[in-house]
C-alpha cells in the first residue's frame, strides 16, 4: 500500500530558506544549483514562471512533478536510489507545480509552452507554477552523456523539492492499493505503451531502458514513485513526459473508480519496438497477460506518432481476439485543414477510439513579453517572442496520448 500526501502549491518563489506554507513554496536557489552541478553542465539558470505570465518557454525537454518519500527509500528508483521495487510507504507530492528542463539538444524536437493566451489553454504545463532549469552544456560535451547528466540533475531537484513538503502541514491523503479488492465489477486494466527506441527516444523503468523488455505488470504506486522516467525528446505533444507518467490521468481515473463501477485490474507496461516482429510479439504478450489476469477490458494508450499507431492497433487486435475489449486514446492526423482522413491505418478490432485532438491543426499564438530557452525557433521564422502560427504538435503535452491535454477533435 502506498500513501500519497498531496500538497497543493499555489505560488512559488526563490528565497533564503526552503519552506512550504499556505501553498507558498519557497526555494533556496543555491541548493538547486549544487544539485545540478556536473562536469558536462556549464551552467544552469533558474527561472520561476507562473500561470498567466506573458512568457514563452522553448526547447522544453521534460517536465517532472516534484515528490519525495516520507521515510526510507527513494523516488525515481534506479536513478536516485537502488533499483528496488517501489510503490509502498509514504510519498509526498507537490501538485500545482512542476519542474521543467530546458536545453538545446540535437534530435530534440521543438517544444514550446506559452504561459498566457490561447497557447496556455493547450499545454497542461501552463497551468502549473514552474521552476525552470535552463541548462547549457560545456563545449564539446558528448550529447548522450550531457543528456543523462541533466536528466539525473532534474530528478535530484524534483526529489529535493518534494522533500520540502515533509515538514509542511499534512496534505490531502490518498491510499493507493497494489491491487483491487473490488468484486462483482467489470475487470478493467490499462495497457500502457511506452516508447523506448534508442537514445533521446528512450523511456526508463527502474533506471533501465525499456527497449528490450517484454510487457510487464506495474502498479499505480510504482508509477507514482517514479519507477518510469522519460528520456524521450521526440514529438513534444505526443510523448509521455515524466510528468505524464507521474500524473497519468488514465491511472488516476481507474484508481478513483475502483470499487465504484469497475475493478482496476492492473497496468501492463508495454514497449513499442522498432520492428514489426517485435511489435507483434509485445502486443500478443500484453494480450496474453490481460487474459491471464481475466481482464474484461483495457484502455490502451501510445507514445509518439506513426509507428506507435501500429502498436495501438495491434494491441486492440490481439486483445479483442482474446475477448478483452479495448478502447484506444488516439491523436488524429487530419491535416492542417482537418480534411485528411484522421487515421493512418485501420484494424477492424480497433473500433473504439477516443480523440485527443488533431496533431496538425494550426494555432496562432500572440506575441509575448519574454522568452525562456533561446532566441530562435527552428519551426518558424521571425522573432521568437513575436506572434507565431504553428501546428498544435510542438506545444508540450497538447495532444498527450495519456490525456493530460484538454483537446479533442470533432467533425464540423
Amino acid at each position, binding site marked *: 500500500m502506498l500513501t500519497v500526501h498531496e500538497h497543493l502549491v499555489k505560488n512559488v518563489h526563490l528565497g533564503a530558506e526552503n519552506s512550504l506554507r499556505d501553498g507558498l513554496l519557497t526555494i533556496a536557489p543555491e541548493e538547486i544549483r549544487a544539485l545540478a552541478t556536473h562536469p558536462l553542465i556549464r551552467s544552469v539558470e533558474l527561472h520561476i514562471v507562473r500561470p498567466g505570465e506573458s512568457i514563452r518557454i522553448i526547447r522544453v525537454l521534460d517536465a517532472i512533478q516534484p515528490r519525495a518519500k516520507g521515510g526510507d527509500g527513494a523516488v525515481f528508483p534506479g536513478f536516485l536510489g537502488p533499483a528496488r521495487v517501489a510503490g509502498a510507504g509514504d510519498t509526498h507530492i507537490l501538485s500545482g507545480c512542476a519542474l521543467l528542463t530546458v536545453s538545446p539538444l540535437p534530435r530534440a524536437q521543438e517544444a514550446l509552452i506559452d504561459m498566457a493566451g490561447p497557447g496556455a489553454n493547450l499545454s497542461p504545463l501552463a497551468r502549473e507554477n514552474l521552476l525552470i532549469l535552463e541548462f547549457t552544456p560545456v563545449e564539446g560535451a558528448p550529447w548522450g552523456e550531457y543528456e543523462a547528466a541533466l536528466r539525473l540533475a532534474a530528478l535530484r531537484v524534483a526529489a529535493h523539492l518534494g522533500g520540502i513538503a515533509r515538514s509542511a502541514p499534512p496534505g490531502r491523503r490518498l491510499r493507493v492499493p497494489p491491487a483491487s479488492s473490488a468484486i462483482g465489477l*467489470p475487470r478493467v486494466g490499462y495497457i500502457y505503451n511506452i516508447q523506448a527506441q534508442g537514445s533521446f527516444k528512450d523511456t526508463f523503468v527502474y533506471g533501465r531502458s525499456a527497449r528490450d523488455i517484454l510487457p510487464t505488470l506495474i502498479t499505480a504506486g510504482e508509477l507514482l514513485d517514479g519507477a518510469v522516467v522519460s528520456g524521450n525528446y521526440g514529438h513534444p505533444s505526443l510523448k509521455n513526459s515524466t510528468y505524464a507518467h507521474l500524473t497519468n490521468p488514465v491511472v488516476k481515473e481507474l484508481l478513483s473508480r475502483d470499487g465504484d463501477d469497475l475493478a482496476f485490474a492492473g497496468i501492463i507496461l508495454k514497449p513499442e519496438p522498432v520492428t514489426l516482429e517485435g511489435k507483434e510479439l509485445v502486443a500478443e504478450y500484453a494480450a496474453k497477460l490481460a487474459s491471464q489476469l481475466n481482464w474484461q477490458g483495457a484502455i490502451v494508450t501510445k507514445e509518439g506518432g506513426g509507428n506507435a499507431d501500429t502498436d495501438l492497433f495491434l494491441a486492440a487486435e490481439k486483445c479483442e481476439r482474446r475477448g478483452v475489449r479495448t478502447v484506444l486514446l488516439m491523436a488524429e492526423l487530419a491535416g492542417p485543414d482537418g480534411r485528411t482522413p484522421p487515421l493512418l491505418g485501420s484494424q477492424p478490432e480497433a473500433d473504439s477510439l477516443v480523440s485527443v485532438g488533431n496533431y496538425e491543426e494550426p494555432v496562432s499564438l500572440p506575441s509575448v513579453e519574454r522568452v525562456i530557452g533561446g532566441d530562435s525557433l527552428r519551426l518558424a521564422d521571425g522573432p521568437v517572442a513575436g506572434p507565431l502560427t504553428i501546428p498544435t504538435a510542438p506545444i508540450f503535452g497538447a495532444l498527450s496520448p495519456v490525456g493530460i491535454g484538454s483537446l479533442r477533435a470533432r467533425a464540423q
Partner: protein
Amino acid sequence: MLRIVHYINQFFAGLGGEEKADLKPDVRSGPVGPGRLLQSLLQGKGEVVATLICGDTYFAEQPEESCRRLADLLFTLKADLILAGPAFASGRYGFACGEVARMALQELKIPAVAAIHHENPGAQAATAGAYIVPCGSSAASMKEALPSLLALGIKLAGGSAVSPDVDGYLPRGIRKNVTAELPAAVRAVNMLLAKIAGHPFTSEIPLPQFDRVPPAPPIPHSREATIALVTESGLVPAGNPDRIESSRASHFARYSIDGLQAFTPGKFESVHGGYSTDLANADPNRLVPLDVARRLEKAGRIARLYDYYFTTVGNGTSVQKAQAFAREIASEMRRSGVQAAILTAT
C-alpha cells in the same frame, strides 16, 4: 436584416423543363418559386433579396464558368447568406446546388447551405467542405426541407458554432480541435464500460471505411482462362463517344478490342482529369496492356482475351458509384465465362 440570396434551377423558377436546361446564370430580384416559401418562413428575420437561376445542363457542362458568372452576380448583391435548392434527388440540380454552396463559402466567404438528398451525387460537395442539409428525394418533401435549410443558414450567418451531430448537416470531412467537456481518460473509461456491458457507444474518430475484399482464389490454369482488361484510367476511343466524365464519373463503358493487336495512339485517348495524360496518350498500352496481353495470348500463356475492355474514370468517383460499376462489370464477366481480370489503375 439578413440579406439572403436563393439559388434554384430553371424548373423551380417556372421557366421550363429540359428544353430550358441550357439557360445561362441569371438573377431576379426577390424570391421566386420555393423562395416565396422561404420568405414566409423568415418571419421578419431576413429577406430573400434575390434569386439566382441557372439551367441544369448549362451548369453541369460548364460548372467553373457557371460558378464564375454566379460569383459575379453575387458580388453586387451583398448577400449575408446563400441558400441553394432543395435539389431533392435531381442529379444535375444537386450538383449545381452543392457547387454553388461550396463556391460561396470557400471562394466568396459567404455562409451558404444547400439542401440535397443524401444519395444525390451532388451531396458529395459536403466532403469538399460545403454545408449540405439532407432532404427528401422529391419535391413532395419541400415543406420539410426548407425549414432545415433555413435554420442552418441562419445559424451560420449569425456566426454560431455548428456541428453535424447537432445541426443535422452531412459530415463535411473536416475535423476541428475543441476543448473537451470531459477528460479523455474519463471518456475512455465510460466508453470501455459501455462496450463491456454491450451498451451502444460511438467512437470519437470515424473509422476509415476501407472495403476489404478477399482476393479470389488463383485461377488453376491460366492457359485455359479467358482474361478481361478493366481500367479506371479513362482510356476511351478518340472523341469519348459515351462522354465519360473526366472526374466523378457517373458511368463506365465497354469497347470492343476484337481483332485489335494493340491500342493505337490517336485512336484511343485518356479523358482522366486526375493526371497528365501526355505519356499515356503517346502509347495507350501504358494504361491498358493490350499489346502484352495479345502476345501472351499468342504464346498460349492465356486461352484468350475477352472481346471487350471496360473503362471508367476513377478520379473523384465515389466508392458507392464504383461499387455499382463493379457489380455490373463482374456480372457480365460471369455471364461471358471470364475467369480473371487485369485491372489497371492510375
